[in-house]
């Protein structure tokens, strides 16, 4: 039944999110979800599709779960509560608003900071995005058994330590939203630039992250949520130009006609809406920087002064060495390579031990521009010693081999 496949894709995550709230248990809700769809496959060809399929699926799922609990003859508290509420609240709990809240609850629970980062990523992909365990494993280049175990452990912790199924209120919302946004952006980056191995763009992960960003944007349209969505859209718009025959193409050398202009205008519009609002933060600023790059017709046209001003603001909000490095590169474009180098040198102490090869790559580039090829060569070699990703490595090797052998001075 093709209609049911379609419905599964559209509705299964919504139905699951509501079932988890009603049943108070991830595993029970998943079983109920599958039983509800199995019942639909069985009954709908005869009876026709009900007027509100989602409500039918939720209520069928809930009754299936009650049956299942009865069969297990576990007359525990859950069962009693379930039977009491089953008749009363079906309609009110299925209003669109309540279902939206359930989806947010699911996202906030899967991204709870009491879970490890790996568990948050796996659980979010599995429960919120509906990927299979095998798909999650493929995305992280891990064994399915490893991912399955990670998900089982996370669900056990949610149940046993009683992580509540709720969207936090008040001051906690801001802090917890950071955890959610961090998970989405990590997913995006896993797709954008795989942290190890030869696969430069695991695009399915980027797509899932953008999908999640859109969902969050609908459910919780705060400036930083819109900022993150804009950032992902703007970076993703360059993906076709970023790789050619498996090789990395830097921003400077990209064929800008390959950039996705529709995504760029959507991203720019989102940034322009989010930036002036209170609650604007690091994601909005990073999106604004990406927007300035996207607006430049050629690399030479880039408005580096504006980018530097945005990095100044970003550094005030998040004074990290990585932001300082990017700011130094922008500053070098405005005030010259020597000014940039002065800022980069003190950062190496912090960034090099963390394996951040881009610090040496940036210094190499500035030294090259100054004609200090010997120093640039040493910097590229140090960057190569730290780099893990094969396309990045080949890019650095090309840069290194293209250096003139004698210093310009």
């Amino acid at each position: 039944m093709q209609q049911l496949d379609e419905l599964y894709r559209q509705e299964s995550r919504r139905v699951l999110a509501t079932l988890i709230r009603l049943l108070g248990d991830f595993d029970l809700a998943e079983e109920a979800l599958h039983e509800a769809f199995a019942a639909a496959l069985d009954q709908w060809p005869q009876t026709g599709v009900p007027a509100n399929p989602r409500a039918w699926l939720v209520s069928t799922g809930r009754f299936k779960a009650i049956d299942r609990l009865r069969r297990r003859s576990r007359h525990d508290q859950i069962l009693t509560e379930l039977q009491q509420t089953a008749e009363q609240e079906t309609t009110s709990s299925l209003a669109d608003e309540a279902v939206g809240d359930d989806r947010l609850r699911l996202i906030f629970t899967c991204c709870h900071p009491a879970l490890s980062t790996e568990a948050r990523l796996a659980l979010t992909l599995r429960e919120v995005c509906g990927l299979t365990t095998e798909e999650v494993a493929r995305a992280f280049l891990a064994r399915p058994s490893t991912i399955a175990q990670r998900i089982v452990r996370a669900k056990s912790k949610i149940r046993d330590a009683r992580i509540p199924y709720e969207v936090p209120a008040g001051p906690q919302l801001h802090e917890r939203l950071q955890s959610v946004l961090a998970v989405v952006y990590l997913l995006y980056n896993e797709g954008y630039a795989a942290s190890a191995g030869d696969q430069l763009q695991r695009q399915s992960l980027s797509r899932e992250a953008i999908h999640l960003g859109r969902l969050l944007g609908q459910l919780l349209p705060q400036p930083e949520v819109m900022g993150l969505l804009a950032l992902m859209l703007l970076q993703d718009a360059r993906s076709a130009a970023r790789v050619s025959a498996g090789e990395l193409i830097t921003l400077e050398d990209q064929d800008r006609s390959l950039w996705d202009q529709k995504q760029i205008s959507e991203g720019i519009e989102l940034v322009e809406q989010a930036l002036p609002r209170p609650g604007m933060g690091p994601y909005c600023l990073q999106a604004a920087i990406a927007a300035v790059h996207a607006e430049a017709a050629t690399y030479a046209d880039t408005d580096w002064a504006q980018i530097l001003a945005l990095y100044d603001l970003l550094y005030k909000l998040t004074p990290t060495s990585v932001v300082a490095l990017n700011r130094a590169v922008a500053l070098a474009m405005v005030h010259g390579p020597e000014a940039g180098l002065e800022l980069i040198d003190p950062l190496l102490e912090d960034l090099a031990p963390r394996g951040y090869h881009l610090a040496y790559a940036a210094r190499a580039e500035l030294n090259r521009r100054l004609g200090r090829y010997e120093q640039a060569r040493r910097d590229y070699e140090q960057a190569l010693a730290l780099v893990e990703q094969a396309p990045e490595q080949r890019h650095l090797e090309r840069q290194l081999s293209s250096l003139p052998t004698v210093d310009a001075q």
Partner: protein
Amino acid sequence: MKYIALVYYREQIMNDMSQQEWDALNQECIAGVEKLVADGKMLDGAPLLSVDTATTVRVREGRITTTDGPFAETREQLAGFYLLEARDLNEAIQLGGRIPTARYGSIEVRPVRELRAEDNER
């Protein structure tokens, strides 16, 4: 639901305090405990003397053996515990955040397991 909040910090930090600072921190802890108890959130708790006073006991082949010190040397040492009553982990985390020594060390929050005659959780 009951949670235990295990308080860890580097004892050296406390040893480096003046008597006045250390007493002030203890007064803060007393006030915190009074507030938690008044809110119905704290069931029990106690601070511990230094790990220098710890003795580890094991029973092997029916015989008690004792060794000097805690069972594991850690960067931060166990300094006390709070038995908390909380609706869920989110509330337990908030309550743990109210413990004054969280500013110096770490609070490990864990659900308490019920001892039953059968069907015990692991």
